[in-house]
């Protein structure tokens, strides 16, 4: 069990995220068809496919370089709101991580939090708006708490994964207040938020690679 996540580990994280998105494309799109424009699954799948192609073509030497490529590729290939949101997330993660080749749990948590701040700045979402924020924010709170309590990288990312899943599940009864789903008002209650669902996948992938 490793105490840091290396560049190679980051790439495996992205690969695993992509695999989960591919596996659940139809499910994500189905969620989005209930409350949005039925494109979240296909948009994310297209975006992550483009990301893996780009990353394969020109391997990055440092974390900031890698995540900049990921962010810019998502921005230009996703199309929907997830493009600028996930794009900003990875761009900020890269900027916060800096030109390093590996991150320990604390550095990773700090970089991910910078990503969250980017998402908030971009989407202006707050807790309970039924957005990806509702999975992302509790995940990072849990990760910070675990790191502060001296948890290992594996334990901290596992805590983040669990909190993201709980956050995702909690979006079901909420009434959407951001994005196209907000036009549905009360009718948006009773469905999981697709963005929160894909975010939970991102943390499943992270927990998987740190446990490997």
């Amino acid at each position, binding site marked *: 069990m490793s105490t840091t996540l290396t560049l190679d580990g980051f790439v495996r994280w992205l690969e695993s995220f992509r695999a989960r998105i591919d596996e659940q494309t139809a499910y994500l799109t189905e969620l989005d068809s209930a409350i949005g424009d039925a494109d979240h699954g296909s948009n994310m799948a297209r975006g992550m496919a483009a990301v893996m192609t780009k990353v394969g073509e020109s391997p990055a030497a440092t974390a900031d370089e890698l995540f900049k490529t990921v962010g810019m590729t998502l921005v230009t290939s996703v*199309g929907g709101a997830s493009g600028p949101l996930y794009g900003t997330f990875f761009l900020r993660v890269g900027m916060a991580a800096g030109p390093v080749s590996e991150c320990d749990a604390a550095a990773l948590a700090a970089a991910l939090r910078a990503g969250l701040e980017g998402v908030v700045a971009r989407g202006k979402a*707050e807790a309970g708006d039924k957005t990806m924020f509702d999975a992302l924010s509790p995940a990072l709170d849990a990760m910070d708490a675990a790191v502060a309590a001296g948890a290992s990288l594996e334990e901290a990312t596992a805590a983040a994964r669990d909190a993201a899943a709980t956050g995702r599940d909690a979006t079901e009864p909420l009434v959407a207040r951001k994005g196209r789903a907000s036009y549905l008002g009360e009718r948006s209650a009773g469905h999981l938020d697709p963005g929160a669902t894909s975010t939970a996948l991102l943390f499943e992938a992270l927990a998987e690679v740190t446990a490997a």
Partner: protein
Amino acid sequence: MSPVGVVAVSHSPALAEAAIALALEMTSDGGPAIAAAAGTADGGTGTDAARIAAAIAEVDSGDGVVVIMDLGSAIMSAELALEFVDSGLVERVRLVAAPFVEGLLAAVVRAAGGAALDEVAEEASGALRPKLEHLGGQSGGRSDEPGAENGAADAQANEPDVPDAEAQATVRNVAGLHARPASVIAGIVPGFDAEVTLAVGDRPPVSAASPIGIATLAAGPGTLVRIAARGLQAGAAVEEVRRLIEEGFGEELADLTAAGAPSASEATATAALAPAERRGTGPLGVSAGRVIGPVVVLRRSVSEPDAAERLPEDELEAALAEAAEARERVAVDYEARAASVSGERRTVLEATAAMARDDAWAAGMEPRIRRSRLTPARATWETADDLAGQYRRAGGVFAERVTDLLDVRNRVLAAITGEQPPGVPERREPYILVADDLAPADTVTLDPAICLAIVTEQGGPTSHTAIIARELGLPAVVGRANATSLVDGTLVLVDGETGEVLIDPDATAQATATGVLTTPPFVGPGATSDGHRVVLGSNVGAPRDVARAVERGAEGVGLFRTEFCFLDRDIEPSIPEQVAEYRQVFAAFPDQRVVVRTLDAGSDKPLPFLTADDEPNPALGVRGVRTARRNPDVLERQLAAIAEAAQHETAEIWVMAPMIATLAETQEFAARARGAGIGTVGVMIETPAAALTASELMGVVDFVSIGTNDLAQYTLAADRVLGDLADLADPWQPALLRLIGLVGEAGSATATPVGVCGEAAAEPALGAVLVGLGVTSLSMAARAITPVGRRLAELSIDTCRSAAAAATAASDAHGAREAALAILG
């Protein structure tokens, strides 16, 4: 100059191309540089920040780019695109919140016409207006739309009706219509039998009884506010609100002449409005003093009410009533706390009580309980979130009131659930209080003898923490990140001047603690540093102003406006009625001077039994003392009432007439007043004619008082309520200062007291200049007494005179102010 470029951002390439083609049909010669950034790279539906950034760079010719977006991700992608373009270019890109087709068309037409960047952006952002106006009443609106929450819907519903009274006022105080002024307005409006609304620009009016509604106007200094009212007392209500706004609530006034040019007062304005922007830039000392003590962290333990619980259909109305009753109990509790303290803390608590009673709560609660069937606790929680969001978006001083709002929420939740509301811990040993931010209710239980200092994570220089710390004389630092993560009992050194918070200071650092530096409130009598006496009185417009004037240490009343007792009456009040009203004011100032102005009707204050309503130019018509030409009886009876009221009280009553232009008028008034038994008689100097003949007038009366607002308006021939002419009707105009100087000289030569009772007296620097010009008393809104008194006490009379000489010699109002400030320091 080349035309401003336009970028159309859409999810759909077909939509963007068609919209651009439609817009270009409106131009004859090809139109401006325009580019579409639509669809994803692979031709799909969506938006792409990188393409938007490229399109912006492509159409920019150096004069800027306007970006019009369709919906959803287009907006976020456009914002993200700004992170990808050169920093030099970012400054001249405007993302416009315009409807896509209308906005694009408006932008293209204006850009083709050679308009500058901001004109193009403004035209585009107003592009929905014609459609709104056309469809206006039919479009209706759901009652839970955001605007409805601040009372806009009610006001809109009334809009087609012609108001019974209207006026405009320019916001003059540096901080604008923030929460305290808003609650002052909302506090007086219910006292009138009238529905009053305020509006700024094209936005729908908001209820003047709703502090949150007023706050959403985001009216900063210089903003023109339209006041309208319907109802029996519409006129009086509008006049009172206009007066409050124009007087700047007794707060520091902004320099409205120097638009664009940096000045001392703009620097202050920036400082006052800066907190939202400076969040996160580090700790800031807001109340001086350097002390050491153990930390006590204020913890707020309010748990979020269950979001999943739903009420049965038959309990909804009871739930609404329960929530309303809880808010009322909380408001009553705030008022009780307010009554137990004085000064700023009282004002702040009264403002918070008004916040608890705000109509915006009911507007937010009703759909949540009636339609979503949430519990009262949950609906309160979500409504508070919404309101807090509105405050945060308004930014600046509004954002600083979020803590107060959340305190209201916490107390309402406690009232609903029957739990203890959170608050400041009770301690017997000295401690330093650490909190995320303090709410006014927290500070009431704060004992300045035990609490040594305050450190908060949130807040800016004008937050309640800062205001209250200064009043209690406690050192305070705001904006200290992670302060609440300190462990109770940790020793810290706090410097309320430098913003330093040192954890576990060593012996050397501990030795630097110097204790609390208190700045006591100003206590009269007013004088310069070398003892030149200046009487600092308060303006009083109604008996309700009296308590504040006394509390602020006013040396009597320099201007008692008597209109309140006449306005909105169809017939003149009887002498006994008048006597009773006047005595209320006189009784509050035993053995002190109260300068009474006789009825100043006409112009903007018409009275059905006294003034004509068909004058072509009411400001130059039968107003003030001129109404006595046709109706001397009204004045005679008022003088008799004043004289009788004076006999019953010990206050020293001086009486003066408004709108004097000639020596003959002065003689006539003096004869009438003395005949009625008034001992000390004076006239107002509000016309250039009176100023130029001041020494002759002083041969007839015992004192004069300069009304700078009217004197400025008549000297510069500029209506002072017109925002466009605010630079002319500026009390710093050298021509005005020279006229005041003439009156001051005449006063010195004849040993006649010369007062000033306009807004000018409330600005500390200008007050000093007036004293330098020979003015012997200043009368102002009660709040201004401490800043003006303090400033004068720092200056010698010679410094005031030098500043006055420099200001009168300047070539314009801005220069006069700069020249005076250079000397006053």
